[in-house]
């Protein structure tokens, strides 16, 4: 029996409608808002604004600072990738207690960000635990106002993000390594490859598909999933030095009641993230080709 050409679409229609309602409607509304002076009241009309909201955000130094901070957060990604590869390679050799290490390293990833934020917020106060330990160890000169100075606040947040996100990378890499044919490693060892050479010529190439996924997911995280860290640890301060684009959007919507401006920033962010998603798809295909070649 042959199905008519429209039949698959008919069967898929309920799911397409659901996806449309869940994803398309908010996105279309966001784009619509970004082109409007959105009124907060039914008694005051919403007016068409054209591209003025976009012109505004790109002329706003705070938005530029926010985007700049997102880009600085990208520095976390290579650090995460390198650490994930190294730690997973070590754990893959099953040193004594490797199961415990694996669990301990994954725990930060499952902790909620507000809890992590509050704990590190206290730890990194000028007179907090971290600096107290440094002072007692005779390293008082290294003590900084980690979250209270414009110079250190963002790097401190980056440290916390790396601490929390690393577990995900390690588990991804370990899962990938577990599916690699053991003979590859054995053959390299028979050929006299040491740990470092094994890592460089066998482990890393085999990890590429997982790494490609991890890198792009983390890039997206640095762009659009860091609000909670900033909100809990610094509220964008001091002096707006840790404002990221999500926090800018939050301020526009919730504090300044300019939904059009917030939406324009949201559309910009969505555009950039979409590019990263395309990059992820492309990198995933390329990495798979390299790994399985």
């Amino acid at each position: 029996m042959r199905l008519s050409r429209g039949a698959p679409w008919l069967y898929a229609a309920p799911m397409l409608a659901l996806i449309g309602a869940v994803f398309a409607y908010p996105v279309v509304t966001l784009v619509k808002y970004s082109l409007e002076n959105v009124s907060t009241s039914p008694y005051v009309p919403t007016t068409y604004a054209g591209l003025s909201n976009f012109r505004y955000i790109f002329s706003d130094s705070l938005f530029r600072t926010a985007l700049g901070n997102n880009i600085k957060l990208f520095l976390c990604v290579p650090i995460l990738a390198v650490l994930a590869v190294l730690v997973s390679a070590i754990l893959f050799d099953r040193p004594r207690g490797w199961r415990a290490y694996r669990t301990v390293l994954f725990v930060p990833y499952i902790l909620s960000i507000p809890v992590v934020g509050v704990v590190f917020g206290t730890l990194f106060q000028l007179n907090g635990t971290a600096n107290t330990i440094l002072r007692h160890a005779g390293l008082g000169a290294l003590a900084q106002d980690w979250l209270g100075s414009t110079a250190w606040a963002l790097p401190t947040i980056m440290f916390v993000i790396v601490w929390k996100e690393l577990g995900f990378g390690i588990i991804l890499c370990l899962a990938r390594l577990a599916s690699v044919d053991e003979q590859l490693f054995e053959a390299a060892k028979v050929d006299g490859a040491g740990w470092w050479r094994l890592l460089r010529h066998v482990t890393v190439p085999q990890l590429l598909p997982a790494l490609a996924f991890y890198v792009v997911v983390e890039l997206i995280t640095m762009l659009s999933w860091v609000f909670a860290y900033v909100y809990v640890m610094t509220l964008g301060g001091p002096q707006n030095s840790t404002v990221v684009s999500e926090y800018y959007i939050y301020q526009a919507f919730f504090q300044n009641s300019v939904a059009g401006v917030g939406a324009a920033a949201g559309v910009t962010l969505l555009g950039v993230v979409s590019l990263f998603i395309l990059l992820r798809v492309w990198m995933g295909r390329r990495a798979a080709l390299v790994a399985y070649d």
Partner: protein
Amino acid sequence: MKRPMRTALATIALCALAALLFAVAATARTSSGGLGSQYDVSKDGKVTLTLWWLGDQEVPGIEKWMKETIAKYQALHPNVTIKTVIDPTDTWTQTQQTACKAKSGADLWYNWSGTWSLEQAWSGCTVPNEVVLSPADISTVPNVGETRWQGKTWDYPLYRFVYPVVYNKALFKKAGLDPNRPPTTWAAFLGASQKLKASGVTPIVVGLKDGFGGEILGSATFQKQLYSSYKGLVQMVINGNFTSPTWTSWITKLAQLKPYFNNDVNSITFGEGLGRFQNGTAAMVFGTPGVQATIADMTKAGKQVGVMKPPVFGSGSYANSLVNTGNGFQVTSWSKHKEVAGSFMAFMHTTERLNALYAQTGNFPADTRWNPSQAKSATDRAMLGWLKDKNVNYPANYYPTDLDVNGNFVVFQGILGGKMTVAQAAKTYQDVITKWRKLHAADLRNYLAWVSSL
């Protein structure tokens, strides 16, 4: 002649009868249709009111008081049921805007004074007090003046937040200062801070990580000193220059005070700063809403605490004053039971309820029907005396939130916790207001109308 005469007499009699009927009808309307405390709720049939507010987040202990108040009101008016919904403070304004857009949700809601309430009024989301309360209900609440716009008032304050400087008498004594005569002038305040520092304690503590400390200090201690009326401040929002020597003068004073604050202002929250004052590691703190409860807790713990007005440096008549703000309720424009909501608002202001409010929360009721002789502590009596002298309101309620969040928050973190200069601070305010003016043309028109109402 007789016939026209009779006709004229009949016409006069008819007119007199009509006038009498009109007068009777008018009298009947007044007695059964007055507003607020005079409103006859029974004629509305079964009514359910929904009240949105922030509860204990704003004033610890007030939820219990509200529960009691509702029970008493419902007992008095069995046809009325009042439901309360507690919302989060962070997203409060957005919650109100969403409700307004849908024209559903609350019949009455809590709001802060000044721009917070007026923005809802400007959006058409609320009705003025005059539509739901009697003139007598309004005349006893001086803080309604904070929302006077176009001849009406737009928020009905229930209690007053006060912003004194609170100090630890034992630490004053240790530093060789007279604990019963705190400094009143700027020079004396700097001198006292110096002595306190020399005695080994932190003279003033504040936490600016969450920003609010910047708003409270800036608004209640520094900015008010420039003014004798907030007309000037609202005018600043409209077209003023925030880099002018007048505005910059208070930032210069703030910079002078920097050496006397704790060294970690940016890494602790306002609450953590308050905690340090409470545990006796700092001599002074700039008071905040709920200061009465802080003082009561410390007194219970055996600490002797005093209050003072912020030291005077400015030449405005508001300089020598204790700043306060009255926060309360607004009735929404879509409520089907506006008059009943007004009646409940008036009930919250009955003397018995006001006395209970003070007894249960320690906050000063915002109504002259509350007798200040209820106050027992010396600090409360002192603050009430200053409030009686002058009703000076909270300056941050007269400018947009943006100027607060990206102005006050940033400048205080920069000056007290960073390396920001006075000129950079002034420029920060100017940049923020320039951006705000560009984005809020409609609000700017409302500010213009507001200036003429002040």
